[in-house]
């Protein structure tokens, strides 16, 4: 125990007040108070289109949503996005991490350029891919046509069944850098001796990956999956510019409407505040388990490992 830490001196408490009070105030006022208020509103039938004072309706909004076909459809779609994105993203990230784990001249430059897409605005990424996949003049068409792989230009973003697939591709492109970094750090912590020993024992390259690399990377995959689950589950920006139609207050493409877009639509376009508030709490419940794993890790590292 260090000296001077048992008793808080008056100068210390002044310091604490100055640095912590603004933070506590901001978080209380902008995060926790609104969160409680939103919950209160989810128990009313508040609708800004209808000029009447909101009445308490109990859990009616929640029941209405759970029984609603559109809600079920949108929820299913959100999970579909997650289920396609996560394996796709992990495969891309694992491949790139294995490559960047090799020693070769120019590795630093390749690494820097590889991580670029992650740091660009999501709305720009959606736009980039929308233009790339454009049916009239898009580069993908030009490229494939030039290679002779397609006979005529394709409208990649026309078929509703294909849209979700392209959404997951763009989400993968936006986010793969994060799992790549985590997996690369994991790879670099595996001691070379293990591989050398396996080589001596005659294990082939594939076997070495299968029995050494992947098992030892499992914790890294764990971190990456938790973070990427949150990111994919809350997808918004990319869809907005890729397929949603993108105009404020306008109609939204129903085939790529995920939970976050649905929530935006309910509250800020349809002005059904009570219903939208209930939806936000249902989303909270759905992501709670994964979120808690994440926060416990952060918390344990942040405060207790001293």
């Amino acid at each position, binding site marked *: 125990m260090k000296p001077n*830490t048992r008793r808080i001196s008056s100068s210390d408490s002044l*310091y604490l007040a*100055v640095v912590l009070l603004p933070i506590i105030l901001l978080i209380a006022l902008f*995060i926790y108070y609104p*969160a409680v208020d939103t919950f209160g509103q989810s128990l009313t039938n508040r609708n800004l289109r209808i000029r009447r004072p909101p009445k308490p309706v109990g859990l009616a909004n929640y029941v209405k949503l759970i029984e609603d076909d559109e809600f079920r459809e949108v929820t299913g779609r959100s999970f579909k996005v997650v289920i396609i994105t996560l394996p796709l993203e992990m495969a891309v990230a694992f491949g790139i991490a294995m490559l960047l784990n090799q020693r070769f001249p120019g590795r630093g430059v390749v690494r820097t350029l590889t991580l670029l897409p992650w740091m660009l605005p999501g709305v720009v990424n959606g736009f*980039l891919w929308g233009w790339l996949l454009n049916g009239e*003049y898009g580069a993908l068409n030009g490229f494939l046509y030039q290679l002779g792989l397609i006979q005529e230009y394709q409208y990649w973003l026309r078929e509703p069944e294909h849209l979700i697939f392209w959404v997951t591709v763009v989400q993968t492109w936006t986010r793969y850098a994060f799992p790549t970094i985590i997996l690369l750090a994991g790879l670099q912590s595996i001691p070379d001796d293990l591989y050398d020993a396996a080589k001596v024992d005659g294990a082939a390259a594939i076997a070495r990956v299968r029995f050494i690399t992947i098992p030892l990377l499992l914790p890294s995959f764990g971190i990456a999956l938790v973070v990427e689950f949150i990111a994919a589950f809350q997808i918004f*920006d990319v869809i907005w510019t890729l397929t949603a139609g993108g105009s404020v207050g306008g109609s939204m493409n129903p085939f790529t409407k995920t939970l976050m877009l649905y929530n935006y639509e309910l509250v800020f376009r349809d002005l059904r505040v009570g219903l939208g508030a209930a939806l936000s709490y249902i989303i909270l419940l759905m992501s709670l388990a994964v*979120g808690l794993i994440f926060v416990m890790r952060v918390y344990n590292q942040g*405060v207790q490992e001293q």
Partner: protein
Amino acid sequence: MNLGLRGQERLRLAVIYVLCAVVLIWALAPIYWVAVSSISTRQELYARPYKIWFPSQPTLESYQTIFTQGAKFRSGGFSPTAHLMGTGLRNSVIISVASGGIVTLMATGAGYAFARMEFRGKNIIFLLIMLMIPLPIWVSLIALFFLMSRLGLVDTLVGLILIFVTLLLPLSVWLMTTFVRDIPSEIQDAARVDGADRWRLVYSIVLPLARPGMVAVFLVSMLTTWNNFLIPLIFTRSDDSQPLTIVLTLFIGQYEVAWEDMSAAAVVTMLPPFLMALFFQRYLVRGLTMGAVK
């Protein structure tokens, strides 16, 4: 086939560089294409089949157009757009720099408190800040919108900055706490025995040593704010406060589709993050992975 040691090494490098090429095409092709589009003439860009891959006469006309005319995007629309790029750029710069600066100062002060001081409620305050990270933001956003309306802060830069600072706090406080903890405490203890109070200690000993951490927090906060779309989508209405991410979507949704001009707008929107990612990537990666990778 026996290649010998040098031959094997050459083959290994050849395979690696081929794979690198594939990875770089995947990572950079969409960016390259939009950059090329923004400096192409419409005739070349709209050629079918497209087969140029670099304009024969590169032109900056699209950039000039989006900053000076703009109205082209909204022919028949209701609001003039000629100055939207200019105001968008100004708003993006103001909110990113201000949010980044303020949150860095706040997080440094708090990071020291969490890393080096003992006080009642420390754990619970830290937990309440960190709980924000996985909290789906909608839970707060809905009621926050009505709160901001009552406070008259909707569609103002001040309102946006306050919200961004709040949202950036958890990551920033976490980073600064770990950074300050990594500074050897012997130096600080020596200074305390000499009777330096907390302010002096933080200002003259912690601040200089924590500078790399502060730079990381500032850059990450700036980048996150610049790239954000949802917050301004909800809390802005006019060019008084709309940043570039919003302006870009206003261009996309309009009547005339001018891909070369929209590409120029996209390039302007992503240029600062792009440059930051090229030149400060070390800091950004460290911050964005919460210091998990150093």
